[in-house]
């Protein structure tokens, strides 16, 4: 996943953010995923407006850690969401 890539959530998923944590239900297999705190923040940024670089920059401002490490974690996390078939494309 490169810097300009603008990941976007699958539009048919049912998801809610409750007290900062996101839970997602897929209509295909009714599988439910609960994202942890940082994962939930990333999820809210997957609106197709933010590219990977922008997401990493926002996380760097909001969370402690080295910018490069945060970016690396974010990319890994996005790949994970992709594998779980939670992203478009």
């Amino acid at each position, binding site marked *: 996943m490169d810097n300009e890539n603008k990941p976007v959530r699958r539009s*048919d*998923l*049912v*998801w*809610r953010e*409750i*007290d900062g*944590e996101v*839970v997602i*239900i897929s*209509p*295909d297999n*009714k599988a*439910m*995923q*609960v*994202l*942890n*705190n*940082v*994962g939930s923040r990333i999820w809210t940024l997957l609106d197709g407006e933010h590219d990977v670089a922008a997401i990493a920059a926002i*996380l*760097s401002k909001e*969370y*402690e*850690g080295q910018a490069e*490490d*945060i970016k690396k*974690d*974010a990319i*890994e*996390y996005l790949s*994970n*969401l992709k594998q*779980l078939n939670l992203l478009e494309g």
Partner: protein
Amino acid sequence: MDTCEYKVTPQNSYEDFMTDKYWAKNRPMSIHFELTQRCNLRCIHCLFNHETRDELSTEEIFNILNQLKEFGVFNLSLSGGEIFTRKDIGEILDFLRIHRFTVSIYTNGTLINASYLEKIAALKPFDIQISVYGATSDVHDAITRIPGSFQKTIKCIRKLLDARVPVFFKGFLLEKNFQQRWQMIELANELGVLYAFDFNMIPMENGDIKNLSAGLTNVQIEKIYQEVAEEGLILRNNVKIKSRESQLPQGGTVICNPGRINGCIGSNGDVFPCPILRITIGNIMEKPFEKIWKTDRIDPIRYMKLSDLKECSECSIISSCNRCPGVAYLETGNYLGPAPFSVCNKYKSLVNEKRG
């Protein structure tokens, strides 16, 4: 402050999430939304009399759906009356397609045209539950009291299946269709859909009990329990006449949980703790849903205990009966008391026959 130096683990515990975010806070997960009380059928056992009453407008429904989503509600069951009598039902389905919920649709299927079918398929509902009251036209139509309704319902099921919409065959057993129960199962199997039966009668919303006479006789109920145990007949409410001990709280635990993570909104905006326990908590046209729900006025309902049921807890058949606070309330106005006509008479007689 949280750190981004974490192991990537998208899945936390769903159980923990539900306990912390929903149960502990009495946050509703599922809402049964009655979009109308109008219906094109006149089923002999229905709890509504289908009198015209104030109904929420399209915009009001959209507003409520936004509130529910904001509050964290996931599951919606769209119910009536018959929801496809609403002229704006297509718009509502479109709205739900965009503002995602896990949707179950309760319908008789007779009014679903090609346009609605397309919208339902696009919505990707969790399921569409279709009421079926017989395996042949004469039996089904005698219960709905509308000639031709059976043919329309079955045709609709086939079309929904062609459109790959998950259909659930919602059978209801009454005295008049009892003889066709196995034919109904064959029909469900032939259609290729899941089925389950219910036979628990609910008095009418206004407290009238005249609809109860359409229910199964004691002999028929006994036969049903035997078939559930020995022949694999499937009931929606898995209640057994032999013993209900596993469902009964021992000591101080909660009996059932109306008004905690499940609730109901009526066609005029009244909010209830459950679709059967029709004690109005408030009206959504007067106050936002979240404010209505967060009242502590219904805590005695939310946290009912066996010891609260003064009369029932001392009854000799409590472990066998199919008690429901909502049914008791409809019959007598007291959700903590017995329901003499719908439940007590029937189960006392059944248990006595067994003992005798």
